[in-house]
């Protein structure tokens, strides 16, 4: 019979010896059996420990010594099944004579591969260290940005205060008069018309977008029509769309010699529509497209004032109001203040009517204020972002505890697979761009690192996966998503793209950011490694 210790891992060898009376106790202590029952190809122990060398216990493991290579452990179900396992290059898992000892060649191949991997990692780690240096630099830069930003923000806040003050005063003076004018039935009606027109335009645009989206959907349906659905309704929809859009039937496309690859060649089958006869003054489609927007952008307040001007006698053009042009810039604000005070007083007495300039001035002041406020908001947003970046830069859930991923923030990688070019901008968005026309689809935006709950945050394995979620929804399917499988490599590059199930993409990406420096001791203890 075979050696009783066959299949026993070196660390457990001492436990495989008979006790007095030739007994042996299962390693879990559950049972005492006779020593001859060890490795007798019958499972006695619940934990499988009595059969390290056979397949009798479903839950035991077999240790192959693999002399000349690295020892390894295989599950019991691979023992004595007639197959020569690569993991058991010494063939000890099978009956003698079944498998040759291939440890020499397998060991050599393994070492060659391991050395190449180490070399790669070593070089990659150098690049990685530059990423880390970059992160430190970036941190400093951000700190500076933050500092200077604080000052700028303070300044800008003051400026906004000042402008606000001016704008409000300007408005308060002119507001009452303007309000009065605005009560004009004509103005009210124009505003109503304008609003109606705007609403119509908005609705129209919505419909146009809907129509286009529907067209796109139907085009996709027509081209991608998957007869799997074997669905006559789908076929009818395709045919209906083709009739409406004047397209040839997709089933017929390419049937003739004039085969057009890819997008079904659009044959103009519809006759030129007879030009519509328009009533006098009615706008054509082209007019609508070109002229509606400018029309709607009309400054109705100015118009109102112009209108006033038009219907009233030009007498109100008083010298007083022309004075402005003669006032030096330096004292202009004071002058304005004075003027406003006087005019409002005159107005109250009914001596003069509010001037159109005043209203115009007030909207100008408002504009300046808005610009200043926008600038302030931009500054604040920049600061927020810089703060976030600062927080993320050495965050294990952000750019890594060493900041090694900061360098890759926003870096876009592309791969052309023939029909499509796939792109992922790291920590940004992944896209599918058709190479032969059609729409680009979002495959999702960066969502997280490795979502597997079992993988500790910040562990090397944590950084081997990224998820991009909530991309464009698939027709009749889920939203598109990407899982990035990252591994150490000298270049930041997409290696492969597969769609294992509909709209679930898996990109494999290499990056030096994952080339961890070799453990200096690693070289020495290779002999203890297990496969």
């Amino acid at each position, binding site marked *: 019979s075979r050696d009783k210790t066959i299949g026993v891992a070196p660390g457990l060898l001492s436990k495989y010896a008979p006790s007095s009376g030739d007994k042996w106790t299962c390693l879990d202590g559950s049972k005492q059996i006779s020593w001859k029952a060890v490795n*007798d*190809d*019958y499972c*006695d122990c619940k934990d499988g420990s009595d059969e390290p060398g056979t*397949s*009798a216990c*479903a839950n035991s493991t077999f240790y192959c010594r693999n002399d000349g290579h690295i020892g390894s452990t295989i*599950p*019991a*179900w*691979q023992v*004595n*099944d*007639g*197959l020569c396992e690569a993991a058991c290059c010494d063939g000890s898992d099978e009956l003698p004579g079944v498998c040759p000892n291939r440890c020499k060649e397998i060991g050599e191949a393994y070492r060659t591969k391991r050395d190449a991997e180490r070399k790669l990692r070593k070089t990659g780690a150098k690049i990685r260290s530059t990423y880390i240096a970059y992160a430190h630099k970036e941190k400093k830069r951000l700190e500076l940005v933050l500092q200077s930003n604080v000052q700028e923000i303070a300044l800008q806040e003051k400026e906004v205060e000042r402008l606000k003050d001016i704008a409000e005063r300007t408005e308060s003076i002119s507001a009452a008069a303007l309000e009065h004018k605005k009560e004009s039935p004509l103005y009210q009606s124009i505003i109503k018309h304008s609003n109606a027109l705007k609403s119509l335009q908005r609705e129209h645009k919505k419909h146009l977008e809907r129509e286009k989206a529907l067209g796109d959907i139907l085009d996709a349906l027509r081209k991608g029509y998957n*007869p*799997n*659905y*074997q*669905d*006559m*309704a789908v*076929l009818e929809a395709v045919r209906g769309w083709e009739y409406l859009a004047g397209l040839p039937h997709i*089933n017929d496309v390419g*049937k003739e010699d004039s085969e057009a690859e890819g997008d079904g060649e659009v044959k103009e089958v519809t006759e030129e529509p007879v030009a519509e006869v328009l009533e006098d003054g009615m706008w054509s489609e082209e007019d609508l497209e070109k002229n509606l927007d400018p029309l709607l952008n009309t400054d109705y307040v100015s118009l109102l004032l112009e209108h006033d001007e038009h219907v009233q006698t030009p007498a109100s053009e008083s010298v007083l109001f022309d004075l402005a042009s003669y006032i030096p810039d330096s004292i202009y604000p004071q002058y304005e203040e004075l003027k406003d005070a006087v005019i409002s007083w005159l107005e109250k007495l009914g001596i003069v009517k509010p001037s159109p300039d005043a209203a115009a001035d007030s909207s100008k002041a408002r504009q300046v204020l808005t610009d200043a406020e926008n600038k302030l908001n931009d500054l604040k947003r920049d600061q927020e972002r810089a703060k976030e970046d600062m927080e993320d830069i050495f965050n294990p859930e952000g750019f890594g505890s060493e900041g090694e991923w900061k360098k890759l923030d926003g870096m876009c990688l592309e791969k052309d697979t*023939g029909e499509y070019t796939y792109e992922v901008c790291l920590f940004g968005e992944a896209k599918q761009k058709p190479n032969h026309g059609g729409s680009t689809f979002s495959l999702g935006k960066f969502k997280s690192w490795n979502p597997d709950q079992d993988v500790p945050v910040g562990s090397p394995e944590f950084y081997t996966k990224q998820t991009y979620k909530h991309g464009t929804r698939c027709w*009749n*399917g889920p939203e598109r998503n990407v899982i990035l499988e990252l591994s150490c490599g000298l270049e930041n590059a997409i290696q492969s793209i*597969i*769609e*294992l*199930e*509909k709209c*679930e993409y898996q990109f494999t990406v290499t990056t030096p950011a994952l080339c961890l420096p070799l453990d200096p001791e690693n070289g020495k203890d290779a002999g203890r490694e297990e496969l």
Partner: protein
Amino acid sequence: VKSHDFKTCSQAGFCRRGRALASRAKEASSWTSPYSIDLSTIEVAHDSAKFTAQVKSSLYPDVKFGLDVRLHTDGVVRVRMDEINGLKKRYDEAASWALISEPEVSKSMKWSVGKTEFKAKFGEGQDFEIVVQFNPLKIVLLKGSKEQIVLNGQGLLHMEHFRSKKVEVEGEPKPEGSEGVEDAQTVIQVKPNAWFEGEDEDAYWEETFGSWTDSKPKGPESLSVDISFPNHANIYGIPQHATRLSLPSTTGESPQFEDPYRLYNTDVFEYIASSPMSLYGSIPILHAHSAESTVGIFHSVGSETWIDVSHATDKSTETHWISESGILDVFLMPGPTPADVFAQYSRLTGTPVLPAHWALGYHQCRWNYISSDDVRTVQKRFDEEGMPVDVFWLDIEYSQDHKYFMWEPKNFPDPVDMINDVAATGRHMVVIVDPHLKRVSEYPVYKEASERGVLVKPKSGEGEYEGWCWSGSSSWIDFFNPGAWDWWKSLFKPYQLASGGWSWTQSTEAVHIWNDMNEPSVFNGPEISMPRDNVHHNGWEHRDVHNINGMLFSNLTYQALLERSDPPQRPFVLTRSFFAGSQRFGAMWTGDNLGTWEHMEVGVKMVLANGIAGMSFGGSDVGGFFGNPEPEMLVRWYQVGAMAPFFRAHAHIDTKRREPYLLDQPYKDIVRDILRLRYTMLPVWYTAFRETTVTGLPVLRPHYVMFPEDKNGFDVDDQYYIGSSGLLVKPVTEKGATEASVYLAEDQVYYDYFSHQVYRGSAKGKNITVPAALHQLPLFIRGGSIVSTRERPRRASTLMKRDPFTLRIALDKKGSARGELYVDDGETYSHRNGEFIWRQFFADKGKKELRILSKDLAASRPSDAVDGVALKSFNPANEFAKSISGVRVERIVVLGLGSKPKSVKVEGGQTLEWEYTPGVASNDKKDGAAGVLVIKDPATSIANNWEILVQL
């Protein structure tokens, strides 16, 4: 389902006519069949039990029909009727495809000719009698004096003769309702035959459905026949329908379904889980059953057929068969037991083929594994998780533009390497090949088919029919054309052909084939199939052969695989479409089911019903083809699948990946255990398959087959036995179940397979409640059975060949048990040369001892040992037996032993170690866990005779 894609009876002209005929008969105060035998034309064969006669119809005195009635040696009565010298010819070749050979007509039985009828007695004790009444024509099969089967008892027999279409004279307006009156002299008068045929020529010459028009060049030629079972209340069979095993009624008092059962092979998208609608396959055979006897009907007709079912009384069943074309060719199978009917039907159409052993393992499929690396990764994941699997499948996307055989080069750049990587672990691949060929000249398969002129033709009879399928514009091979046969077989050769013709060099013998879409499915055709007026070989219309079409495809593929290797390896061919006889070529599955509990449940019934019709090797897609099953459902479906003859997981392209290793815990561990359970039970499955290949008894046996006299079991279709193993399965198909109710039909002890809990049945039948939490599959061993298993987990079944056996002995009330085991090489046909072992195990308890024996069974019954041949003798020391003589019994588990034994030893050999767990005895009245004796490693060879003595 898109119901409007498929016809109801009222949308099919001939079915409408058939049902109208039946309702006229029902409403008439008196009704007599117009058909009778012309006495002057009777000819009785002098050397065999066969007679022919002309049948005339009072409706059309000038039209003649030929009747041919034969008594086969096994008591089956065949009744054929065809029009004689008609204007055209009815299709009469359906039987030539379905039958294995021309059945032997009895020479010993004799007809006795009377004035009003023919009679013949036959059977043991002459207790069967067949009576053919002349006027009106009626055929009755009796047992004792009880009517078993009555043909045309209700006078619905009608064979529409061929007639000429009346050409309408131009400018002469015809009054409504006068169309098609036969005799110009009687125009405007009442149609004399209207009492029978109806007033109108309803859809005689043309018929539209949706946007399709069926041109019906031959005019009306439908066939109606009523077949009654005055003493049988239950009928089973006529698959494939998603409904109960005991078929619900379709006419009469409050029928469950409004439409008749339809047999018309169709690709039904998202089919309904309870419906008489036709599905992918059609087998026109049914069993009529009562506690007294079982009889069967097989109607060999390949055209669309509708079958109405009703019960005039609670003891009887009436069926009405309405076919679109073809001849009457009915086989009356007298039984009288279910086993007899199975044997009788098997002698006609053959038994299921013995599958390769590996085909009984687990099959992993998905639409689609997208690349050769994907296949490798899936294989790796199975291995890492210790989940056994035997076959990886590739659906249509492996092929370039759906040109089958042609690998898509970007994703499958190295197909042979991939196949070899799978085969390196003893596994196989199954690759899909569909019958539609993409119409592009650079596709060699299409090109060669086109050049040979073996494609189905359009109604003009010229050129190639063109339809739409996966591959876009496609044509279909006409397998009715013998010119297609050798060519098709040559395509599968994995090497270069000497002829220079194309062959699949990018494949190996480890690749087997999946034939899908062979109804045939045509996306832009009527009812997603071919126009009925398409033309096949010899000018037959598609309507004549539609239901047979799918079978020929899998038949030829089977032959192709058989011929590609020398010595031949057993092919595996999965087909979606099938007909009577398809069991000879491989496995089927229940098509594109949905991931719902209803579909899981009805799938079990469908597999049982298909087994009744000979298609034992079947299963439903584990997980459901459409949809994303939640983990609980997936686990239950694995339990269902593991207990089905064909065990395959499959998923639609739009579904999430759901390979079992992707499951979270605890589901993953549960499914791993189920997969391993399937593998431990492979000896049981294989032994059950051996039996069906010889006897035709189904692998899955419903209650009425097991206990024909137990009325309580006639409607039971949610539990079944596996072969004669004694294993009783009750799959759980209910969400959230924690227990299940199981019906025990007999006064016998049953043991829970896993816990050894004892359940005792009753002679009157008894329902028991058993635990059925998610990890628990209700599986029982019937007392009196010995079950052989191999309990070492492996990666694939082919790696288990040298693994030892465990025998599980379930003692019956009397303390005895027996069981069978069949083993051969599992791959070749060497078993037909006697290379196998067929063992029987016995256990018998006396007062002082329990004897356990292994005996050779083959030597005593060589002629019914294996399929395909009747061996004259058997050599127990054959080469195969020698090759496994080292394979031992490693464990014997005895269930139901009430007391601790004194000793255990091999007769004439060593004393054995054993362990005893106290518990109840098989003959106790008590419930509880059984007393269990485990005998450790008797080390007796599985191939040898031996005896073990347990001293009590």
